[in-house]
């Protein structure tokens, strides 16, 4: 029995080394269809790489924006700059509370914002954000917070990508990467905002979504709020306008709102603004006209002009 356990232990150590080397080899040398669970996406849609590089230079700002693509495509930092407000948009693709937690642990101390505008949506409670984690791993330098998040998500793609991303950190490939400011129809604006400057056609149709609220996300959400409150930062939750064609299950919406309202000030811009589909480029995202209207309304709600 002792011999068995000893040999198994040695074998597992061998297998771990083999596995890590194998992931790095596959990540470097084989096409994507030979490595479906290694999803390294540096410079993917959303300009996460540029944003996560820029945030390292940010220090003591007035407003920090957080959230998913509705945040980095919805909050135009230039509108705030015109009013003398220093802001930064730290939204990332598909960001859920688990990813917000990682981002804040990594950067909050340095950014030291006076206020956080946290764009929230029911979807952020729905999944564990595997895709979003992969996006952050691929576009930022990884540390122990990355390992903690990977363990919370517990997904093989997330583990593999973390291993490969760490390898890329070590060999210095990420530093050498240069991301285009203009990609497809998107333009990265200094401060973290991504402008969809070209209008594309999109067929709006009824999209009814049902999902379950994940307990791990509730826990992460409360930790995020706790972290922000501990630093004495003013926190405001906002829900971005979405197309009326996108229907979210009523029960989920009620549960979502009760969770958010229990932790702070909350504004649903679907109630404050009544925007038709002319203000959206797809069911979830505002176009440039929509962003202007949304920004102006947010400035009014936050009383920024008066301050």
């Amino acid at each position: 029995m002792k011999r068995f356990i000893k040999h198994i232990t040695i074998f597992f150590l061998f297998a771990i080394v083999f596995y890590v080397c194998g992931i790095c080899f596959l990540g470097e040398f084989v096409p994507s269809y030979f490595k479906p669970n290694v999803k390294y996406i540096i410079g993917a849609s959303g300009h996460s790489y540029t944003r996560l590089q820029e945030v390292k230079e940010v220090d003591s700002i007035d407003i920090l924006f957080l959230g998913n693509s509705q945040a980095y495509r919805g909050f135009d930092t230039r509108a705030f700059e015109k009013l003398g407000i220093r802001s930064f948009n730290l939204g990332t693709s598909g960001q859920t509370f688990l990813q917000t937690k990682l981002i804040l642990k990594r950067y909050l101390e340095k950014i030291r914002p006076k206020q956080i505008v946290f764009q929230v949506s029911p979807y952020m409670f729905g999944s564990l954000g595997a895709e979003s984690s992969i996006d952050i791993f691929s576009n930022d330098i990884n540390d122990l917070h990355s390992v903690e998040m990977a363990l919370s998500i517990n997904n093989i793609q997330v583990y593999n990508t973390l291993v490969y991303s760490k390898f890329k950190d070590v060999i210095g490939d990420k530093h050498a990467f240069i991301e285009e400011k203009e990609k497809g129809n998107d333009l990265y604006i200094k401060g973290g905002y991504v402008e969809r400057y070209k209008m594309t056609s999109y067929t709006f149709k009824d999209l009814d979504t049902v999902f379950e609220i994940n307990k791990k996300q509730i826990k992460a959400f409360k930790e995020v709020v706790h972290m922000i409150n501990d630093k004495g930062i003013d926190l405001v939750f906002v829900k971005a306008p979405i197309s009326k064609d996108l229907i979210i299950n009523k029960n989920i919406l009620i549960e979502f709102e009760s969770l958010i309202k229990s932790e702070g000030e909350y504004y649903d811009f679907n109630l404050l603004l009544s925007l038709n589909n002319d203000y959206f480029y797809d069911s979830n995202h505002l176009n440039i006209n929509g962003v202007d209207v949304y920004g102006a309304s947010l400035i009014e709600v936050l009383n920024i002009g008066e301050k």
Partner: protein
Amino acid sequence: MLFNSIDFAIFLPLVFLIYWGIMHKSITVQNIFIILTSYVFYGWWDWRFLFLIGISTLVDYFVGIGLKTYDSQKKRKALLLLSILTNIGILLFFKYYNFFLENFTNAFSLFGKEISTTSLQIILPVGISFYTFQTLSYSIDVYKKKITPTSDFFAFTAFVCFFPQLVAGPIERAKNLLPQFQKKRYFEYSNGVDGLKQILWGLFKKMVIADTCGHYVDILYTNPSDFSSSSLLLGAIFFSFQIYADFSGYSDIAIGVARLFGFQLKQNFATPYFSSSVIEFWKRWHISLSTWFRDYIYIPLGGNKTSRSRFIFNILVVFVVSGFWHGASWTFILWGFLHAVIYLITFLFMKKKEIVKTKHIYTIRYVFNTVFTFSIVSFMWIFFRSENLDIALEYILNLFSSSIFSFPTFISKGKLLVILLFLGMLLFIEWKGKNESHALKKYMNTYPKIMRWSFYSLLILFIGVFSNSDETPFIYFQF
């Protein structure tokens, strides 16, 4: 709890260490520990159905005791009937109630009579078809005096609920497994290593081959008319490999896990796709179920030691019942029936020598027969996989058209290449180990340790790189 889950990856080493480290001093303590862990294993999925295993266990245990106590034929028959009614009753209610009700209603409506019935929202308890058959065989064997009933309650309970094979077999016989619960188990290094090799191969088959093929099969079977003939042909082949890799993978893991605890379970698959006839296929596919039907239905009906017409009837009964065992749907019944027809054609027209031969001479004829058998079996799987007869018919009708010569549209060339490489690897390794109890038993045994370890690590790497991010249940769980 699924074998391919993180939960099980934690559960197994923990249980293994406690079993051999703390519980090894007494058989009874080990058996009680097995019962507890088996109930936790099953309850992880849904604890509400644990009582069904409990009922089956209690009834068959006391039926066994009763059969030993009473000599009166009348009383013995009554006891056997109690066991049959309990086990088959549980199975009929949970698995077939809605099927019978629906067909009963439809039959009445054919005669212009509408009757109102209420179907129940019944959840099918995982593994119900397996453990009911296992306990039932115990009562029948005791009744027939083939085995002596046990009075060791813990050994019997552990035999019924032994977690490696509880939810999807192999369906064990008391004659083989029960005595193993009544004698002291010793840990053997070679058994442990061999068990782990078999588990690894099973996981590779399930998580890499079955789940990868399954992804595309699901797409094709949702709307077959949307795809070209070549796509549907490839889909039919993919499903053949999916179901084999899924179910034989499960069996490999179950047998391997049992070996870690000092138990030897029956071989359930013996490279069935290398069979050169449908008759041979059935000797190699899901062996524990085939032999169950042989021993408890086919032979009691008279087997082949009877008139030709009666023999044909017996074969039809066994295959139709086998189809129905898989699920409460006409697709399974038709699948079973068609297999019976092919079986009979083969039996009646093939030379006896060809049917019974166990060792092949690998000639062109053998290759042709094997490919032909695989094609027939793959065709039959269409009925097995389809949601209903309409989908099966749609699939078959669209399978035969001029688009058979076009490139399949549902998959990219790169992904197809990956799957074909894995299928080639599966066939190669299974072929090399076709005479062993599992494919990796002697595979690479003569190579240096570093090569063997690298190969096993490569399998782990493939599992990590190609498996689904979500844990996919085994197909046979639904039966």
